[in-house]
């Protein structure tokens, strides 16, 4: 097994990640890459309390995570690479080895336009997603496994009324 999902989700650890994807993919570890969480002991403890005992979470800053990803891909168990924003995932993609990116949840915030029920983007974030694709990553939006993976071009062309 390896990193079976590279996900951007601004809620980080939550039901869709731990249960929705975690159970069907038999995920045993999550690599949570977020500079703020990596610097906060209490937030790390909060997220550890949110996952079942058989699931391990490892916390890294973006800079620390990038050189470790090859090792994580050699793990015998299935894992999820998780970032809370597009910029962090872009740093990992630019480092190399991340071939597909799951956009799982970027929620409403001032200045963002709604594309899907669970995807709202600023123009800068749209450009950052195109950068991911330009670096060779296949970017799709899909909140849970039972829904269709929406390709990036279709996602960016879609505007939903907010």
């Amino acid at each position, binding site marked *: 097994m390896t990193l079976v999902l590279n996900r951007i989700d*601004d*809620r980080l650890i939550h*039901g869709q*990640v*731990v249960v929705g994807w975690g159970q069907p993919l038999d995920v045993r570890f999550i690599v949570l890459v977020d500079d703020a969480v990596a610097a906060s002991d209490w937030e790390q403890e909060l997220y550890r*309390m*949110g996952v079942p005992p058989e699931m391990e979470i490892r916390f890294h800053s973006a800079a620390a995570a990038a050189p470790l990803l090859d090792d994580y891909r050699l793990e015998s168990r299935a894992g999820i690479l998780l970032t809370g924003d597009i910029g962090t995932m872009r740093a990992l993609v630019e480092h190399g080895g991340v071939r597909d990116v799951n956009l799982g949840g970027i929620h*409403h915030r001032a200045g963002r336009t709604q594309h899907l029920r669970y995807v709202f983007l600023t123009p800068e974030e749209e450009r950052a997603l195109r950068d991911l694709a330009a670096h060779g990553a296949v970017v799709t939006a899909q909140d849970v496994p039972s829904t269709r993976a929406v390709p990036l071009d279709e996602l960016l062309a879609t505007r939903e009324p907010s």
Partner: protein
Amino acid sequence: MSDMPKRALVAGHADFAAGLVSAVEQITGQGEQLVPIQVNGLCGDEIQQLLRDSMMKHHVRIIFTDLQAGSCTMAARKVLREIEGGVLVAGTNLPMLLDFVLSSEPDVGVAATTAAERGRASVSVHGAPA
């Protein structure tokens, strides 16, 4: 509009909170003690703000949520770090909320803790293979 005092927030995925509060109201007529919180489309920071604002508006310090790993539970944990005496109960079910709204315990934190035990004990399985 009822002047029944609010005693707790209920928050979770999709229509979890509204559904449970509706059921509590139908069974006991006490559903207005609970404030259902719907968080579809909100990011984690917005969920925290919504919980914080709702707790202040309704003068409550108890939050019932659905999943241990759910975004409402995560947000509630962060909010309750700032609130003395706040209580979070994750894994909420209907028997738990029924016990809570019918409790005469004046300390809502104690009532929530007792209700959590009642909810945990109310799960049963019938017809399972031996």
